[in-house]
């Protein structure tokens, strides 16, 4: 047998393999082609290699080399094909598993904090960071704590503005959280840094701007050397944290029986930035809280030396802040628990 014949035969096998591989259309048929050609027992190439011993000695090198080349070629082609088909199969699998990611997810429910309660917690956090102690105080109070000890005896005209719910002659629903001043001075020696938030009650018929129950925060700082400047500085920190870092504060004389000097505090309108709008009645300012230096009579009644110690106090409606911050037009919405309202927060 000549080289020529041998090589023709190898060439013929190669053509045959190419044709078969070209026919293979899937990973499975491709694997079958592999078994037929390079199977360890019955593979065509294996069979050809076995024939090597039957050939004349002089033909063996040429045939061996050609057969080896063929085997390398077949294995290379098969591997490439298998890889191609494998990748396609994974692709198909992925395609079958493709989901419409734009459909909504599982409807886990998530509750929403009440807007006033959230503000209340935020306010308490600001004061805790400033070194204040938060007091949790009773809503049912003795008249003494709510009024008399705060320099509001029964004959005081300022009592008119705080129409009060009474249980009996001397027991009432607190009309403000300023009771924190008296409670704090009772249990703490100066320095006192006290704050209290919660529900307060006034006999006001409910309408868009009044509710017989609402929320307040009241603050007391008492120490040697506390000044009105300290009151202003602390207020500024507080108002910037609660409203906006750019908010401006206006501090003007005001009257509350438990402070002297007393002050009304405005913030620059958070809607028009002070230019004047409907909400600030074109003034550019919004009245936000009452403040002042603790009245010497209040200190004396609580047994604090008013020569040695000075203090500041202020009180603010939390609902009022919520009304302003979220532009809510009716305070009653806060106490109706309408989910169309609550879920907006």
């Amino acid at each position, binding site marked *: 047998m000549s080289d020529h014949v041998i090589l023709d035969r190898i060439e013929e096998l190669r053509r045959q393999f190419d044709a078969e591989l070209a026919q293979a259309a899937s990973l499975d048929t491709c694997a079958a082609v592999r078994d037929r050609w390079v199977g360890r027992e019955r593979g065509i190439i294996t069979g050809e290699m076995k024939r090597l011993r039957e050939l004349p000695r002089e033909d063996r090198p040429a045939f061996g080399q050609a057969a080896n080349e063929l085997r390398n070629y077949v294995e290379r082609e098969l591997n490439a094909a298998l890889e191609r088909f494998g990748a396609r199969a994974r692709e198909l699998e992925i395609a079958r598993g493709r989901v419409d990611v734009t459909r909504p997810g599982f409807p886990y429910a998530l509750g929403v904090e009440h807007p006033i309660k959230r503000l209340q917690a935020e306010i308490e956090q600001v004061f805790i960071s400033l*070194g204040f102690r938060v007091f949790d105080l009773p809503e049912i109070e003795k008249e003494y704590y709510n009024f008399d000890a705060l320099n509001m005896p029964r004959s005081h005209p300022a009592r*008119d503005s705080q129409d009060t719910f009474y249980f009996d002659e001397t027991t009432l629903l607190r009309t403000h959280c300023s009771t924190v001043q008296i409670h704090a001075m009772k249990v703490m020696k100066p320095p006192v840094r006290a704050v209290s938030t919660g529900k307060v009650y006034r006999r*006001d018929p409910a309408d868009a701007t009044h509710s017989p*129950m609402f929320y307040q925060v009241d603050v007391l700082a008492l120490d040697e050397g506390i000044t009105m400047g300290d009151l202003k500085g602390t207020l500024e920190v507080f108002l910037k944290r609660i409203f906006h870092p750019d908010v401006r504060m206006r501090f003007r004389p005001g009257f509350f029986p438990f402070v002297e000097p007393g*002050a009304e505090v405005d913030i620059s309108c958070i809607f028009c930035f002070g230019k004047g709008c409907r909400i600030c009645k074109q003034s550019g300012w919004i009245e936000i809280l009452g403040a002042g230096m603790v009245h010497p009579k209040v200190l004396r009644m609580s047994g604090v030396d008013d020569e040695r110690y000075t203090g500041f106090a202020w009180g603010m409606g939390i609902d009022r802040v919520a009304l302003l911050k979220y532009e809510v037009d009716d305070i009653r919405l806060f106490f109706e628990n309408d989910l169309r309202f609550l879920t907006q927060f």
Partner: protein
Amino acid sequence: MKISVEWLKDYVEIRETPEQLKDDLTMLGLVVESISPFQGEPVLEIEVTSNRPDCLSHVGVARELSALYKRPLKYPPCAEPLAVPVERIPYEIRIKDRDLCPRYTGLVMDGVRIEASPAWLQHRLEAAGMRPLNNIVDITNYVLLELGHPLHAFDFQRLRKGKIVVARARPGQRIITLDGVERELDEDTLLINDGDGPVAIAGVMGGLDSEIKPDTRTILLECAYFNPPSIRRTAKKLGLSTEASYRFERGADWGDTIQAAARTCLLIQQVAGGEIAGSLKDVYPAKIKPVRIGLRRRKAEALLGVTLEDAFVTSTLERLNFKPAPKGKGKWQVTCPSYRADTELEADVIEEIARFYGYQNVPNTLPRYNSQGLASPVFPFENAARRILLGLGYCEAVNLSFAAENEHNQFAPGNGERVALRNPLTEDTQFLRTTLAPGLVKSARRNFNHGIGEVRLFEIGRVYSLDSQGRPLERNTLGIVGSGGFAGCNWRHSQTAYDFFHLKGAVVALLRGMRSEEAEVVPAAGVRWLNPGDAAALIVGGERAGVLGSLHPDLAEEYKLKQPVFLAEIDFEALCRKVFQPVKYEPLPKYPAAERDLSVVLPREVSYGEIRRGILGLGVSQLVSVELLDVYEGESIPAGKVSMTFRFVFLDRRKTLTVDQVQAFSDNILTFLRSSYNAELR
């Protein structure tokens, strides 16, 4: 208080625009609410705080402006009734109760012609929001608006025996006031009497009988100072607030009665043509001493946080009519004007200095914050509960603390105690709530009525009760309401009806999240507002901490609820004592756990809780958990029976359990179920 800018110009020079006045007065503490024109002239609406009755007049406001702008104050011209004694018409003034009326100044004029006031006078009254009546009444009102001192004019002919007697009323005494109302008086009321009986309620309103009439010719002018708390009490008791009582109860000027009478006298002479017929009598039995206050510059500086010049202190006070007498370096004794009802202590004078220093000019500083911030004791508990319930899909609710009578009757605990307000506002606020349930039910209903069927809310707030002495108490309480679904509803999760076990699941998750002591839910009786079919009590650490279940069908019908509503109410204070158990770490097991499922058919009346307790009581220490996987009743299960599938987890911390061991445990449990409950393996 309406202040006409044109009128103000009689007393102080004003170059500023109304807008500038508005800002300047506001920054002095006299808040100008609005500027509204009256017949083309600007009128300031000023909100005067209750401590500054001296600013309830044009001269009062002008005084502040004169001090601010450093321009002189022009006091209006007065008659000189004291100059020539006139005794043409004799009259007498007696004060019996000098504590309530320290000073009474009177003057008699005759020859007055009662007619309509001239246009200028009517115009000014109307600008200040008052209705003109006749010249005499208008003039007293004019002086009230001008000087702030209320005056009263009596028809002298109607004053019997030409006498004025100021005295407390006798109980049961009556008077018909100017408004035509007959009023019964008590002994706290101060009266102006003539020689026979009452002619006016002092400082509040005159009597009808002695009012100025068209034929009045002779008048007695009254300019007095009454005790403010007394006037306040009377006005409150009679429900009668007048321009006069408003000023007297805040404190009129005790020093200007002669001037105010003289000013009125001059206007009457000019406008109504009267003459003095009985000269001025100033009866002043209880001399009032001007308030003197020690003032230290250092104290002012310490309180305000600023540095002050002595000259600034004295000039500011002098411009305001305070008289500082030097008492050493940086110290004064300050005599306060008689019209300043608000100055009593050093701090009051310091406020005057601060007002004119400018609150805005006090530099903002921070105190030494030398203390540690501290949350309220209840905050960690409330915050944890809030976070967990929010995460479970419950929105936070806040209801008013009030309860109506019918709500109280429907929901109140058995003993029916109610916390009543003495002066409720409306029927709905007669009582304080004794339970959170009605508020939450009404919240749910409100949402149903708006077409929102899926309602999950919680509320942490106080409920109220009475102690053994009948005193009101408050108690922090947690309420939960659920209805409609336990989560949202969409293509991945079809609508599930919220039921008892969703509510119980939320309560159990809450307890787990708060690391409570061992808890269980057991049947409960006697909760009026719960359905007896599922009413349950929550026991935490052996103590009853709350109740849960569905709303009683009677109440569901009463409240016209369209769907079942489930409610829990937990005594939050009791719960707080049983939570936040310390964390105790247990090493992770080194050997695998084995699971066994067991389906058995049991009599329906045997509760799961009982079975579970029984199984856990068998003493199989390797049994680490029992779970109820499935409950089935119906086809293939005999009537009166129920099939339960349990999953048991076994674990030995020292070795791997063999199949035989696990089987033995399982058999042990099955034997127990068979012998105790006639259970059959399914």
